[in-house]
């Protein structure tokens, strides 16, 4: 009997059922899309902010200048506690050289570095490290170096030496010389424009400093500094220190990296780190507000549409009462109807919302999104709860009315 009533209710008034279904599906879609991206957006934004450049500088701990770090320690950066937060790093070894090209001569800086080096660390995913990853604002005319004797030259230096991609530069340090083929000219608007960048190995042998680097720039995902993060770790108790060490403050990630690089000292680059923290905090709270707003709105939309549909059906309820149905039976019919519509709406809404989240993520961040597993049951169950919450009040009111009065109109 119950099933026959339900079946007829769906088949006899398809438009009304469809409208309620539409409203539930759309509400569930907004909720799914928002919950799906809300968590990801803060991560994606943090990654986006990494394009401002490295936020940690590693240098030899000797304050007097000079001193070196060991190149063999570099892979250890990918094995530290915060390894998943470290999005890239690049070593540098620099020396002052006589640089000459097309008959002109200058004293200038030669930097040995990694451009995009495939790094394989046992037990870790292989990764690509180097300038290309951590300094996306570099504007290279020509191409990046590939062979050991290729180099890119800063735009200002290139202008003075009157050299273009394809030309050769000779560098000389303490009697040793090395010829580089210039394959690109780099414009940054900063001091990089005054330097010649060549592969690390070549510069190491030019400087006779095999296996050594003078600085490492590290780009790491960090959390905004708060009052606790600003405390001096030296004055912390053991518990406090542990909490500090296990929070990805830029200072604790720096400390973490410092520990694996022998003889090093890590400094946060505050220009990048402090602006980033503030910006992330704000973007995250905007996202949080928008999510609350969207969830609230979709819940209201769903429950009001249920109310509207239920309120218009009091004659039906009255008729059922008049032919002898008890409250329980009537409730069972209407709640059952709502249940079926909202489960179907929840499933469709989830699928649509998942696609929406994917589209947003693709258009804005050029990346795919993996929606968490808990989202599916959450979407369905919340669609159900909201729908039932919306129909209970009008149903109760309808049950209270006298059948005669309603049927009379």
């Amino acid at each position: 009997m119950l099933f026959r009533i339900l079946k007829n209710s769906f088949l006899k008034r398809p438009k009304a059922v469809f409208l309620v279904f539409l409203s539930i599906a759309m509400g569930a879609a907004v909720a799914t899309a928002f919950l799906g991206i809300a968590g990801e957006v803060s991560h994606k934004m943090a990654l986006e902010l990494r394009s401002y450049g490295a936020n940690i500088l590693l240098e030899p701990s000797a304050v007097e200048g000079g001193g070196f770090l060991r190149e063999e320690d570099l892979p250890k950066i990918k094995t530290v506690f915060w390894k998943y937060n470290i999005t890239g790093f690049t070593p540098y070894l620099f020396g002052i050289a006589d640089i000459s090209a097309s008959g002109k001569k200058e004293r200038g800086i030669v930097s040995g570095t990694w451009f995009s080096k495939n790094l394989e660390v046992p037990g870790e995913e292989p990764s690509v490290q180097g300038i290309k990853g951590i300094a996306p604002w570099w504007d290279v005319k020509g191409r990046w170096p590939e062979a050991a004797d290729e180099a890119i030259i800063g735009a200002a230096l290139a202008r003075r030496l009157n050299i273009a991609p394809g030309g050769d530069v000779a560098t000389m340090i303490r009697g040793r010389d090395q010829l580089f083929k210039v394959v690109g000219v780099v414009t940054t608007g900063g001091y990089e424009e005054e330097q010649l960048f060549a592969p690390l190995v070549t510069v190491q042998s030019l400087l006779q400093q095999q296996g050594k680097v003078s600085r490492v720039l590290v780009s790491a995902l960090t959390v905004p500094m708060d009052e606790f993060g600003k405390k001096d770790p030296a004055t912390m108790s053991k518990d406090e220190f542990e909490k500090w060490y296990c929070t990805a403050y830029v200072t604790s990630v720096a400390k973490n990296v410092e520990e694996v690089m022998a003889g090093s000292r890590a400094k946060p680059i505050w220009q990048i780190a402090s602006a980033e923290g503030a910006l992330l905090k704000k973007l995250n709270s905007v996202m949080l507000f928008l999510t609350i707003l969207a969830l609230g709105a979709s819940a209201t939309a769903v429950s009001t549409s249920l109310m509207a549909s239920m309120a218009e059906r009091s004659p039906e309820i009255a008729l059922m009462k008049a032919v002898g149905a008890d409250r329980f039976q009537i409730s069972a019919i209407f709640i059952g109807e709502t249940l079926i519509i909202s489960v179907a709406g929840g499933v469709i809404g989830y699928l649509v919302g998942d696609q929406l989240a994917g589209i947003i993520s693709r258009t804005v961040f050029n990346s795919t999104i993996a929606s968490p597993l808990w989202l599916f049951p959450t979407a369905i169950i919340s669609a159900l709860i909201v729908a039932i919450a919306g129909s209970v009040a009008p149903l109760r009111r309808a049950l209270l009315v006298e059948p005669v009065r309603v049927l009379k109109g």
Partner: protein
Amino acid sequence: MSMNRRRWLIHLVLRALAHRKGRTLLLLAVLAMASSLATALGIVSYSMGKRVAEEVRKYGANLVIIPETARLDVGSGGLNFGVVSEPTYLQQHQVEGVLARSGLKAERSFHLRGALHWKDADIMVEGVNFAEIRRLFPWWQLKGDWPAVGETVVGNDLAIRLKLKPGDTLELAGKSRMTRLRVSGVVSTGGEEDSLLFLALQELQQALGLDDQLTLVRLMVTAGGDSLKKSAADLQLLLPSAKVNEVRQTARTSEGLLAKVKLLMLMVTAVVLVSAGSSVAGTMSTTVLERSKEIGLMKAMGGTRWEVMLIFCGEAAMLGLLGGLAGYLLGSGIAQFITRTVFASSAEFVPWFLFVSLGISVFLALLGSFGPMISVFRLDPVRSLRGE
């Protein structure tokens, strides 16, 4: 249509709304909800662009001016390995004049780099205006106080090397005279500032005998993209003896970030509006759909399609207008609350959003009543009155 008949129609609409208070209130609430959502999201995204643009300015200057023959010596982080050339200078009064004349909206800071002698060694020092530094370099981590007259701030690394702490005094010898300075604080930035000593620009100019000379000017121009490029080109024309450079690390990255934030807000707004909108139109339709009896009665009493349509659309439009007005007020409040909480500044007052809000609300109300009405019209009045 006679005046009388028109008044009768308006009367009918009002009575219909007043008679079913519950339904009217429900629809009003739903329409107000949708349009307040539109208003809030619209205003937040609209002010988001500006607020985030302000935030990214904390990454520092986007233009630098240096003497034409000088080497570039700026940037963030540890890639600066020192300069290997003779210093050259900019004329301070000339730069000031040009900046005033160009009408450029920009924050600026003047810098003079040089060396002073202390205890058999040369120390790299920089003359700055500390008020400018506090605005343009918000990332300075200062232990101690900002300096007053006759005081200095020492970079963290230099302080360790020279064993200096706040309160110490040192006598520095320049080319033309001695200066006595008291250390007021120690600064760390993770950049080149860590190994410099900072003092007031004028004091350094006098000590070095370099009145009116600067080595570097940093500008934070309130513009991005092409207009930043244009500002740089304009300044370059006015300052032929200098180089004006765009700092790509801050300028370009900020531009990319802003574009992403705006796109994200746009998409989020679109998703919410389309889904909430269709849900609201659905609710509206539900209420009209259940009124086939009423329509049948009107037709049976001799109302033409046009008149019935007018009554229903009038009802929807009135609901839409009221809902839109309420939605605008509520939405502005929500937007105000969000920007106040997040950015600690009030949202922009955007009056034309009232029309957006009203438009959306009326559109949804009409959209919701239009579809079912068409199908109800096809019904035979007799059959719909019989409830079939």
